[in-house]
């Protein structure tokens, strides 16, 4: 009875295969090719590109990206948990508002949001004026692109991916446990760690994957807020593809990135799949 209906999903399957799966295979293939003279590539197969990935500069960028992605994930987890807790315990009619407020930026254009940050903190922008009015000395040029801004952009961009699953978990959470703990005299932080967090494990793991994986390859934020000195993997790959026109090298870097991401994602999922020992 259902086999005919499965057929309805075939067009989508073909699309996915054709435009998600096969392109990834192509990347794998190209990573083994050699750069052509006028850009593009020639099918001289070798592992040379992968070897080049392990140069000092490139490894530096890799670890830089790893750091940014990890810190972003961590910050999102901490902030996200607290936010979701506050949201889930707000008055019922306010919850809807909070969810929309958190989700809205995610659905708007990233470039706009980053632009807004630039405007806000930038040269002679309101933040600078505000700080100067408070008498804090500020170097106007240092504000437009630096590492802190990158983190600001990353965290604000990726928070919804962490907050929304966590909020969902809070919705299903049995708050009787919290009341019982309060009854027994536990303070709020104790409650957080021993009662709430263990139940949020799955949501935290999903959130972590949803943040870490895309964050590792982020392009726009470091590009617009970080400047030339703060190049991350995403920027590196884009540069190889668009500027240096070394597609094989760019592909090789991407393959390594994908490999790392698959590893991290499966490690996280294994970690999340553990049953409680107690």
């Amino acid at each position, binding site marked *: 009875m259902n086999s005919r209906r499965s057929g309805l999903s075939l067009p989508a399957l073909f699309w996915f295969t054709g435009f998600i799966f096969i392109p990834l295979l192509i990347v794998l293939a190209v990573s083994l090719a050699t750069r052509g003279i006028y850009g593009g590539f020639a099918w001289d197969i070798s592992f040379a590109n992968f070897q080049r990935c392990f140069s000092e500069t490139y490894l530096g960028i890799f670890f830089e990206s790893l750091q940014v992605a990890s810190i972003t994930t961590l910050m999102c987890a901490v902030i996200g948990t607290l936010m979701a807790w506050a949201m889930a315990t707000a008055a019922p009619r306010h919850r809807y508002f909070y969810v929309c407020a958190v989700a809205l930026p995610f659905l708007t254009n990233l470039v706009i949001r980053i632009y807004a*940050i630039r405007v*806000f903190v930038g040269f002679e922008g309101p933040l600078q004026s505000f700080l100067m009015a408070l008498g804090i000395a500020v170097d106007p040029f240092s504000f437009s692109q630096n590492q802190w801004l990158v983190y600001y952009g990353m965290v604000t961009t990726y928070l919804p991916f962490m907050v929304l699953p966590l909020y969902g978990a809070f919705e299903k959470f049995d708050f009787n446990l919290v009341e019982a703990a309060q009854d027994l005299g536990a303070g709020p932080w104790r409650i957080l760690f021993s009662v709430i967090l263990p139940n949020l494990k799955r949501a935290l793991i999903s959130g972590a994957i949803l943040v870490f*994986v895309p964050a590792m390859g*982020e392009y726009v934020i470091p590009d617009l807020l970080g400047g030339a000195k703060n190049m991350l993997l995403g920027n590196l790959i884009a540069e190889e593809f668009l500027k240096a026109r070394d597609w094989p090298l760019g592909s090789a870097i991407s393959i390594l990135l994908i490999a790392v991401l698959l590893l991290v994602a499966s490690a996280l999922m294994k970690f999340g799949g553990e049953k409680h020992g107690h």
Partner: protein
Amino acid sequence: MAIERVRPAAPLPAKILLWLVLSLLYVPILVMILGSVLDAGILTPKWFLQVFDDGVLMSALGNSLLVALGASVLSTFLGTFAAIGIFRSKSKIRWAIEGLSVISLIFPEIVFALSLLSWFFVLGLELGLTTVMIAHVSFSLSYVMMTVGARLANMDASLEDAARDLGAGEMEILRSVILPLLKPAITGGFILSFLLSFDDFLITYFVNGVGRDTLPVKLYAAMKMGVSPKLHALSTMMFFFTVALLWVLLKSQVLKALLDRK
């Protein structure tokens, strides 16, 4: 759905953090919106007028709308039937689709951007709005599947049984029972795809080739050269366009129907 009783409140720092973060999220946007209507402290529409006068920007807007429309129609069509097809199925097809769907949702955008670029190159396809549309369908498919899938999961299973018992065949059940009940979710999926397409930057940047840019790409290029009130206006316009569509999505029966069980 959790019972709507009063829950024990979270500690104060958590609530403060919530508001702090929401401010940090929205203040820059508000600043930008303000900047788009002020000129040396006076309210003026002149920046918006400059945007509308700019032929290049307007044609980019046209491109964005065209691509978004085409991509969302295709995406909604494929995604809806995919969601119906895999629903409660145990076949290998479902496993494959779900796996690829997850990949398309999670992998960094840049990976898709360059994979599609390479694939189009190998295929010999000329880069332009068509390739952009293809790319957009590829990443919005999963969202449509999720939206429609959620509604399907909420649907009373015995409705199909009843239809079958009364003599309806597969196609008839689809036509007279399933699709009518899915209408809100299909609309929601459509609007979602439209927004995702309209707002997409990175993938579009990679695969649109030279010449016909979409609005986000134009915005990016302009941004590289610095901030200006005209760009404030452009950004504000795009922001409100998104908000307006989301408003339509929420206020219409769509979201309510998605959340109700039936």
